[in-house]
């Protein structure tokens, strides 16, 4: 049996699919042939499947470095849904006693997810060494690059970590990487070693790109109501503010009669769970979410993604609208652009990084004051820089450079919002892809006449929101067989 056939068998056995998506097979084959790989695959292609299938095909252990706790939790959850219980996440959510228990029983797991800051610990590294991972996966690998807006200091030292783990095979995965970011990943993570790159275009040809410019909040809300009433869902609306997500969710529910819920980090875990499950099972028409809305969530039939606020950068924008129409059917991504929103994003950027004054103030503080300062995220970032060996002056330069980079990224996002040319081409050029405008259903600059009706996105019928609320006995009967 040749390798291709064997891989298809494993694909069907573990995931229920009959064919690979773009780039997946090439990545897995390269890994099986002992090559380090950088995989740049657009969102929705199924990057996780690459290392999961490798693990099953080679019956080996996989260590995955992931930057976000929520992403790790989603991925462990997705594995559990597939019947795979040998998955665990090691991050700051585990208290020290539980962490020690997990580290002592690592051999019971096949897929171990770990946050980069955990790898700062020699104890954790020693234990992971004994785990003998045959593959180290660096997920969201773009976080390694200072050229990118999502840079995380803990990622800088992954090159050293690879060596400390005995230089296993490495797979770096990301959905968005400009040429500079790609070069950084290769330099820092692979230290000049030979690697194979599998790069697929970021373009999602089945997503129509649209920008609607508005002058006021009232106009934006009116437009939004019109859109959700007209378009076939389910839909996802992104916000940069939890409060706005809540308010708009209530407003849309009241005005449209649609089934709408909010989702953000300010909600309790079990409420977020309920909203997510309702959305996945088709019990919600619209979710109003912040970026907390699961990166690892796989709902294939989201028909539209609307951004209420301009995102901070094109990387995040492409990732977020990439949740649309993963089933390959026609979808639409709409950005509601109001120039005033740029101020909000600038404010968020400036508040995310410590100023030179704040860095100086931190170094002058005693232990008690430092404990109080830690309540602010910017000061936690200072401590992270400290852990990564930066001096006070280096920190100031670093933070200043990051501020410049992030503002540049926002400026690029603004250029996208204000461009008169093809939106698909704009995104392609930014990521170094050659993307040509499509003839049909490209963007609202190329195809002004395209309508929801032509795209098959017109709203069909409303599901009745209000049936009689069940009594407790009915709920018990539904919950228990």
């Amino acid at each position: 049996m040749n390798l291709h056939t064997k891989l298809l068998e494993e694909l069907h056995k573990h995931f229920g699919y009959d064919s690979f998506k773009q780039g997946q097979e090439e990545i897995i084959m390269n890994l099986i042939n002992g090559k380090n790989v950088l995989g740049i695959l657009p969102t929705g292609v199924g990057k996780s499947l690459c290392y999961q299938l490798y693990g099953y095909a080679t019956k080996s252990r996989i260590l995955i470095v992931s930057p976000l706790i929520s992403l790790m939790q989603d991925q462990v959850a997705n594995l559990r849904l597939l019947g795979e219980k040998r998955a665990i996440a090691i991050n700051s959510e585990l208290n020290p006693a539980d962490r020690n228990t997990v580290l002592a029983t690592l051999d019971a797991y096949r897929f171990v997810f770990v946050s980069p800051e955990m790898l700062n610990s020699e104890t954790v590294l020693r234990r992971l060494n004994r785990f003998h991972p045959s593959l180290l996966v660096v997920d969201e690998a773009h976080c390694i690059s200072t050229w990118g807006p999502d840079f995380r200091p803990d990622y800088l030292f992954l090159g050293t970590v690879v060596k400390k783990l005995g230089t296993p095979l490495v797979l770096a995965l990301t959905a968005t990487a400009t040429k500079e970011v790609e070069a950084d990943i290769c330099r820092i993570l692979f230290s000049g070693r030979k690697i194979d790159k599998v790069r697929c275009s970021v373009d999602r040809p089945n997503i129509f790109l649209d920008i609607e410019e508005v002058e006021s909040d009232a106009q934006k809300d009116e437009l939004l109501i019109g859109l959700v009433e007209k378009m076939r869902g389910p839909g996802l609306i992104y916000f940069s503010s939890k409060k706005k997500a809540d308010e708009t969710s209530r407003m849309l529910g009241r005005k449209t009669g649609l089934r709408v819920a909010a989702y953000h980090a300010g909600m309790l875990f079990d409420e977020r769970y309920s909203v997510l499950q309702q959305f996945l099972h088709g019990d919600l028409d619209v979710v109003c979410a912040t970026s907390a809305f699961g990166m690892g969530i796989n709902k294939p039939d989201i028909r539209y993604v609307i951004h209420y606020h301009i995102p901070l950068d094109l990387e995040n924008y492409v990732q977020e609208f990439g949740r649309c129409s993963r089933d390959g059917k026609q979808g639409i991504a709409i950005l509601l652009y109001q120039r005033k929103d740029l101020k909000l994003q600038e404010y968020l950027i400036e508040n995310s990084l410590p100023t030179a004054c704040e860095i100086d103030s931190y170094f002058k503080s005693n232990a008690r004051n430092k404990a109080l300062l830690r309540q602010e995220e910017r000061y936690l970032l200072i401590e992270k820089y400290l852990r990564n060996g930066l001096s006070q002056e280096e920190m100031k330069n670093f933070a200043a450079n990051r501020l410049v980079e992030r503002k540049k990224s926002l400026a690029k996002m603004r250029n996208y919002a204000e461009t008169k040319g093809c939106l698909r081409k704009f995104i392609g050029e930014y990521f170094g892809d050659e993307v040509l405008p499509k003839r049909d259903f490209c963007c609202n600059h190329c195809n002004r006449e395209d309508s929801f009706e032509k795209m098959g996105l017109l709203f069909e019928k409303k599901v009745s929101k209000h049936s009689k609320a069940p009594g407790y006995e009915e709920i018990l009967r539904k919950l228990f067989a």
Partner: protein
Amino acid sequence: MSNSLAVQRVLIYYDDESARRSTVIRQLLTNRLTTSSRFWGMCYELLDVVNTDYELGMNLERISDLAVDKGWLEKDSDSAYLLTPFGKKVRDDYLILHKKLKKPELFAKYSYRKFSALVTLCVQVASELSFGNRSYVPITTDYHLLQMFKAWYLAYGKAGAAEVRIDLEKFLKEEDETDAAVFMSRFAGHETSGRTKEQIADDYNLEVSDVVITERDLMIRFGEFVINEGGSLAELFKHELNEGLVSSSALKTYEMVCQGKSADEVARFRRLKSSTVIEHLLDCAIVFDEFPFERFVSSEKRSRIEEVYVGQKTVCWDFHKLEGTGISFYEYRLVQIERIKENESAY
């Protein structure tokens, strides 16, 4: 909680006859107890609200100031608030129209947060098992909780899980039907996603804050119900006990004192500072019905104290009047506590 309802709700912690310090109320609601907040909690007759409303507690001063703006409270220079006659009417109306916790004292006894996570997980697992399904995403990512549940399930198996439904049915039969439905609506299980509190409020035409209180109320009482039933589920739940109104260390001090040990002996034996033991004694004197006051304050000192403060309300005593008498703050406070308890009211 909607802002306007929170401003009404905060009034239930204040009084129209004597001003109350917001710091004390905040510490009680958020379970950040000190000896001082326990003492004043006793004087305010609010020891049963400990740990019952964390969110309101964290925002107490801000919300109380909003109530001042509305003319429902008055604020003095010591950040103490007094309920106005208008505020009293608003408070009384609120208590008639909105939900209350039936057994607030349980929140000091049990960890509501852990109970809630445990019950939610138990219901989900029991539901999935009843349909023979083992592939689902657990409703919690708390590793410790999952391990604890796993160990329990290994011991008690499907029969244990089946008790979840039995206990729920027994418990809910005695509850108001809408309350029971509100409580059950939040649970996720087999092909059931659970509802958010906003959705539940919409479903049953209630305020979100009433949904929150109903859910908290039934959750903590269900937890106690299960423990009292004594079945296999009780083995899982009884781990989630709080320290209660006194710490476990203070409890050990109290036990030794009840066995006849002096404060010095306890300090030496347990290798604690004397000041720590004294704090323990004060806490226990406040919380427990039985306390040997006479062993810690001599009758001479007691008479001297009563002489100094004759005619004054106990809570209005000023310790500075005892300067030069050789009576310690601790002895003075014990006498205060004993007198307040004897008279059953501080004011």
